[in-house]
């Protein structure tokens, strides 16, 4: 769990939200570049229209109201209204263009991540917790979406708005503006102080909440164990301390939040006081511009317009920083290149299904330049399985049985020696062709939340007769027919409505739907109910009768149905022959037989 991902390191190196890595997003942005461009074009127009409003209001007040000129009053006010309505329209265009572009970009990025990830090799998934990979395509992408629609261009808009407001203020009264701006540095410093404090406090709040929620989640899910072991009081005490920490962090955070809000509110009132005071002083000074009613009203508005982005600015920068960190992690994932190198040779369909292994060696880890093979799990396997033959592989835990299955199912790459299917090297065969040739049934049945049909076809187009054949062959039709919905019956979360035995039958059916020439079967060790057991055995025997099979066997009945038996020990073939031959030999197989295979196999699983 503590394996530091490289992402963490790179993120620390490039903490800036303006880093060049945003350019990596270009392929996803490009199809919507016109929308982004439209949003950018809107920016100066929005700023200009916004900054014009107080000035137009000032004109109405000073030129008509104060001057007592009723004529043209409504027209001048109408101009102000036009600016308000114009702002509404153009801001609408901006917001919609930007969010549509952002959402579409995010969708493309999501797809890019998913497509990339689904293609990564098993080694990657063995190392990387599923939750972390999931976070890349969900939370991290969401952070990015926030930054795109509320961070990036909207910061540009804020800056542009503030500039436009300042220009308008200078235009209306330069001296007053300068006097007010003198207040800006301490104000900005103060806001920044609060922001910093709040960022720390917010992190505290977030951590406290996360701790509280994950504690609650876990204890609720494990409530029976808690109750059985009488852990109620202990659990409540721990909950109380987490709950109190969460409360206290929030109360502290609330103070800064409330104070900042009030501070900005109060300070804008103080600015009004300052303007009035300034105006009063100007009265006595000949030649200076008089502070008019309209000017004060306009400046009150301008000050509000200046403060508003200031209030939100650091929040937006936070969006960007968070998105930057997320983007780093996403790039790290997109940069992972561990994948099975696809071959290109296409086997004839159907193909006879002759499997030849010669000198197959394999290690999960290796040191560069080390040829000693000291990490080898498989140490030179030789085996020929003729078309239609059934070979059972037996051995103790750790003998390399499961590794062999993984290699043949092409979920692991990098074997040495040679594995050929009908004379073609396995690594050279095109992925689609490998799947046509070799079907695999794994020990752990993975079911998806979808219909039964989907769980058999896995989203591929399969003809109805083919599907029906596979169902009948493996007895899966009994499962399909148990409800009137048939193949459309829903399979719930992780197959919670499917028993272990039914799951194994479905896994066998799933492999047979593809009608492969060779079947690699990793027999499950978990005990299943006798009825399913019988149906499964029947299905397996029918498959044996039709296909080339390599089966990692745990049940004696399966083993005795095999034509030949291969005994693996510590990655090497120690015996090979028929049941009777090997028993007569009195070696490793006879020893396993005496122990009862079922029990010998259960003690553990293959590494990872």
């Amino acid at each position, binding site marked *: 769990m503590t394996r530091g991902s490289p992402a963490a390191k790179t993120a620390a190196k490039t903490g800036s939200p303006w880093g060049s890595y945003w350019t990596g997003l270009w392929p996803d942005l490009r199809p919507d570049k016109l929308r982004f461009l439209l949003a950018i074009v809107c920016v100066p127009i929005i700023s200009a229209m916004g900054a014009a409003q107080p000035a137009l209001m000032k004109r109405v007040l000073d030129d008509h*109201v104060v001057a007592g000129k*009723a004529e043209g009053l409504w027209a001048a006010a109408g101009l102000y209204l036009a600016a308000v309505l114009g702002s509404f329209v153009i801001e609408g265009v901006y917001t919609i263009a930007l969010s549509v572009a952002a959402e579409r970009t995010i969708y493309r990025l999501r*797809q890019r991540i998913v497509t990339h990830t689904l293609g990564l090799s098993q080694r990657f998934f063995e190392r990387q917790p599923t939750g972390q990979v999931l976070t890349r395509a969900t939370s991290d992408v969401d952070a990015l979406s926030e930054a795109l629609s509320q961070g990036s261009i909207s910061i540009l808009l804020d800056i542009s708005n503030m500039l436009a407001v300042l220009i308008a203020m200078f235009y209306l009264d330069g001296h007053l503006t300068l006097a007010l701006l003198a207040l800006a540095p301490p104000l900005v410093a103060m806001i920044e102080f609060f922001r910093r404090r709040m960022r720390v406090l917010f992190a505290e709040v977030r951590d406290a909440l996360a701790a509280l929620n994950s504690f609650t989640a876990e204890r609720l899910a494990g409530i029976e164990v808690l109750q059985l072991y009488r852990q109620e009081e202990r659990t409540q005490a721990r909950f109380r301390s987490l709950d109190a920490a969460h409360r206290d962090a929030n109360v502290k955070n609330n103070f800064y939040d409330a*104070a900042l*809000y009030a501070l900005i509110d109060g300070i804008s009132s103080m600015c009004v006081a300052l303007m009035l005071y300034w105006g*009063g002083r100007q009265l006595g000074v000949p030649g200076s511009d008089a502070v008019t*009613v309209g000017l004060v009203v306009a400046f009150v508005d301008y000050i509000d317009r200046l403060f508003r982005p200031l209030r939100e600015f650091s929040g937006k920068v936070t969006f960007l920083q968070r998105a930057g960190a997320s983007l780093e992690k996403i790039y790290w994932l997109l940069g992972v290149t561990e994948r099975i190198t696809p071959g290109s040779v296409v086997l004839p369909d159907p193909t006879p299904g002759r499997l030849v292994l010669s000198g197959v060696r394999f290690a999960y880890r290796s040191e560069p330049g080390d040829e000693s093979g000291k990490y080898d799990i498989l140490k030179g396997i030789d085996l020929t399985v003729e078309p239609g033959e059934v070979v059972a592989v037996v051995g103790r835990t750790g003998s390399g049985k499961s590794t062999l299955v993984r290699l043949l199912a092409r979920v692991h790459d990098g074997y040495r020696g040679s594995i050929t299917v009908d004379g073609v090297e396995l690594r050279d065969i095109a992925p689609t062709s490998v799947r046509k040739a070799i079907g695999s049934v794994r020990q752990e049945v993975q079911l998806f*939340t979808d219909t039964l049909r989907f769980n058999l076809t896995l989203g591929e187009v399969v003809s109805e007769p083919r599907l029906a054949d596979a169902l009948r062959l493996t007895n899966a039709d009994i499962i399909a027919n148990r409800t009137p919905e048939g193949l459309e019956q829903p399979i719930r979360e992780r197959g919670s409505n499917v028993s272990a035995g039914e799951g194994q039958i479905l896994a066998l059916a*799933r492999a047979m739907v593809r009608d492969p020439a060779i079947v690699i079967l990793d027999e499950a060790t978990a005990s299943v109910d006798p009825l399913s057991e019988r149906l499964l055995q029947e299905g397996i025997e029918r498959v044996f009768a039709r296909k080339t099979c390599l089966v990692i066997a745990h049940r004696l009945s399966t083993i005795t149905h095999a034509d030949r038996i291969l005994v693996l020990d510590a990655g090497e073939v120690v015996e090979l022959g028929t049941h009777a031959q090997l028993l007569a030999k009195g070696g490793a197989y006879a020893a396993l037989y005496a122990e009862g295979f079922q029990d010998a196999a259960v003690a553990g*699983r293959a590494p990872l």
Partner: protein
Amino acid sequence: MTLPFPHLRRFSARYVAPLWRWYLAGTAAVFLTNWMAVRIPAELATGLDALRAGAATAGVVTTAASHIFALGAAIIVVRTVSRLWFFTPARLAEFELREDLFARLLKLQPDFYAKYRTGDLLSRATTDITFARAFAGFATLQGANIIAALVTAIGQMAAFSPKLTVIASIPVILGFLVVRKGSAALMGIQRATQQQQGLYADQLLGALQGISTIQAFNVEVPFGARLGERASVLRDNNIRLARLRALVFPLFTVSGGIAVFLLLGFGGQLVVNGQMTAGQLAAFISLVTYLIIPLRLLGFLLPVFQRAEASLERIHAMFDAPVTRPELALTASGSGSPASATTALPPALSLHNLTFKYGDVAVLNGLTLDIPAGTSLGVFGRSGSGKTTLLRVLARLENPPPGTVSVDGVDVTAGDLDRWRERMVLVPQTAWLFSETIAENVAMGLSPGVLEAPVRDAALEPDLAALPAGLETVVGERGIVLSGGQRQRVALARGLAHARARGAGTLLLFDDVLSAVDHHTEQILIHTLLGRSSEASETRATPTCVIVTHRMSALQFCDQVLVLDEGRAVQLGRHTDLLAMKGIYQDAWNAQQGDG
């Protein structure tokens, strides 16, 4: 007649009302803040008019300016405390509610948990509580604030000009109505979006967990497309949300702009006609701008009430759910019995015509048998035959009908549940681990010194040797860093540790946990458990054991074997006797011996 918002009222009475001093002080501060905030435009009007009058009234201008400055400074303090005096009690109420809810959840029994998905319960205990807090803090503050702002600002506006007050109100009220409607629609889409996000995450998680299958079948492309479909639904929902958002909120700003336009026109006319001063009009405009903000929040307020009511209804459902502990009712009526006072002797169990139903389906059907103190019962049967349910009934995870299960001659449902659990250890079929260290998972409150023997007995030592930090390895969420077998062995060690801690007077219930250990370990374990190992002396009492297993190699050592089929006891006797009878047991034996 029923009053609206019953759950809000119930929550308020229990959690909010005791904090009334906070809220009273907060309300006073809110009114003071608003009164001061409204004074500012009034002072401004005086100042502006004096400014227009020229140098003669410069003193008035300065006075007004200094008043405004002082008001601004005072507002900083008063507004801060007014917010705090609402938000702090809200946090206190949230804390208490959370405490009580969690305590309640710990008391509720499995029949309750069977009715709800964990995710659903969790969202009640987390998200729903935040909505209750939003009511106690945000909604009460804004409610007080809106009332205060309306009363003070409208009073001031009417003092300037009743006619203008009416005129300015029209667009603002219309704008408010639009935003209210719009924000309701927004909430709807937002909820749909959250749901879509959840569905997408679920589907992606499913794909990642099933990645080896996906790759083995080379179906990465259809799976990518299937996820893409989900993602595009999510995208379209988000776009709808953004469109509506771009329309609704700016509309309120526009309604304010329209109000200002009307004020400029009509008010300007009034000033020109001499019915109002220019300073007053300017003050009026800033009052309208001031009112816009709380009014905009008013649009959010009703949804907050509704959401909090719905959330509290869901929370109260948990408070109202019955805790199914029949002995409590009995104790209350004075006939409670200490059926399981701590004793050094293992319990003797007796089942008399035990029938147990889930809904209408009888999962256990008319079981009658005795398990004498210190003996062992093996339970055999296909899945769905009622084995697990039998153990759950004995552990009172499910309550048997009265009079069907007795412990040492006393009805189990009449005894105190907590006492009973202290005399019993159940190791369930599916191991549940918490994301702590292995040591903490095994100990679960026991002192760490007692772990060595159970760890050895559960054959956990080889696993520990292979793990980076041994017993101190943090197992991750649900024990994710461990294999299935390792998880089961940790749970087994936990059971063994607690069994030892509870001493000889214990009942051990093992649900299919032997499959986690190899044949050899199983043999040692079963001998230790059943007191048949060479070192177990005759004098030491052995616990009463009920062991569910498929392994006949273990069943042969049990004092009795019960064969269940569809909830009925079809066979009962010693291993050797059952082998001699025709039936499920003999068939299974032959199958396990092979050649079948």
